[in-house]
């Protein structure tokens, strides 16, 4: 009985557990204990890993990967906007929202993967700087939360039932949360460049 109830909400419970873990990590001071130890890893990323060496040695390669990162974020933004504006009833009113949600998701996943891979390269090139930036850690946290939200909550929920059965406020809430999350990821990313 309990097992069947739990399995029905496995993804929601996993996300809740992850959220609880983050709260515990913060409340118990685990983050503060781990943080100093990460400095050596970030220095290694920047000075010794081949990603960091390429990034710091070849400026043109770094700038080109940065451009690919921006393009991936643009594609990601395009898919998020198309989906969320449809859920809000702003665009594609004549196309079923189920079609838009499923039709853009594959592209979103590829764009996210590209953004993460190129982002790792970009971070490695300036790892000894970003380690000390609060905005970098905020971005990482929002990226993690956003990815979990998209892959484990929003998409499974929207593909699990016809959208006519979902309350309109729920659709709007999902769309606004998603747009705000990805806007924050992009904006904090831009802010890293200014810091």
């Amino acid at each position: 009985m309990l097992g069947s109830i739990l399995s029905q909400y496995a993804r929601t419970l996993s996300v809740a557990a992850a959220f609880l873990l983050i709260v515990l990590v913060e409340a118990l001071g685990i983050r503060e204990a781990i943080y100093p130890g990460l400095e050596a890893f970030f220095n290694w990323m920047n000075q010794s890993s081949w990603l960091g060496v390429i990034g710091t040695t070849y400026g043109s390669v770094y700038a080109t990967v940065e451009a690919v990162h921006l393009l991936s974020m643009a594609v990601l933004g395009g898919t998020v906007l198309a989906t969320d504006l449809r859920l809000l009833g702003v665009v594609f009113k004549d196309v079923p929202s189920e079609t838009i949600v499923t039709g853009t998701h594959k592209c979103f996943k590829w764009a996210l993967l590209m953004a993460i891979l190129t982002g790792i390269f970009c971070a490695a090139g300036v790892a000894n700087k970003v380690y000390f930036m609060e905005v970098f850690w905020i971005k990482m946290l929002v990226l993690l939360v956003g990815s979990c939200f998209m892959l484990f909550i929003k998409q499974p929920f929207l593909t699990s039932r016809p959208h006519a059965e979902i309350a309109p406020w729920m659709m709007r809430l999902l769309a606004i949360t998603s747009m705000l999350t990805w806007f924050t990821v992009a904006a904090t990313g831009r802010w890293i460049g200014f810091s």
Partner: protein
Amino acid sequence: MINELLLQFGQWMEAQQYSQMLVSGYFSYSWLEATHVLTLMVSIGSLFIIDFRMLGWVMPNVPASTIAARLHKPMIIGFVIMFITGALLVYAKPVETIQSLWFRMKMILLLLAFINAWVFNGRLKAAEGNWDNDPVAPRPLKTGAIISLVLWCGVVTLGRYIPYDWVDCTNTTNTTILWAAGCVDQLNAL
């Protein structure tokens, strides 16, 4: 001749009070740059979705003309914001930008991208109704979409190169590059 005129125009802009205000205010310039880059997600994001549909990569079951028509408005809004903020960024650092080889190349690609968009729109209207529900657009539209993707990737990449100074007026003596970048003083000094 053209380089001298552009430099004079840049110097005239740089002498303007508002240009100096934009560049000296740390947050004003950063906000402009951030808005310019973040609007990529609206403008180029929407444009790429349209191009991807032509290639059959996204929503192949939705009529291509519907995708193009519905995303047209957000895309245009995005591009208008990008052009306004882009123009203000040039206005804030006119001489430096006008004498950037990457900026000049970006403007050429931008022009080509607009010509391609104009041709593409014409083809889209001409072919309306014949192929709309096909997963992949006919060859001319597919070619237009690929050209669009390549040109806009180039625009973004060259835009990203602008802040870097690998090919700056002060660190090259190659006359072709100096001429292409519009480095008038350095050319006269040679």
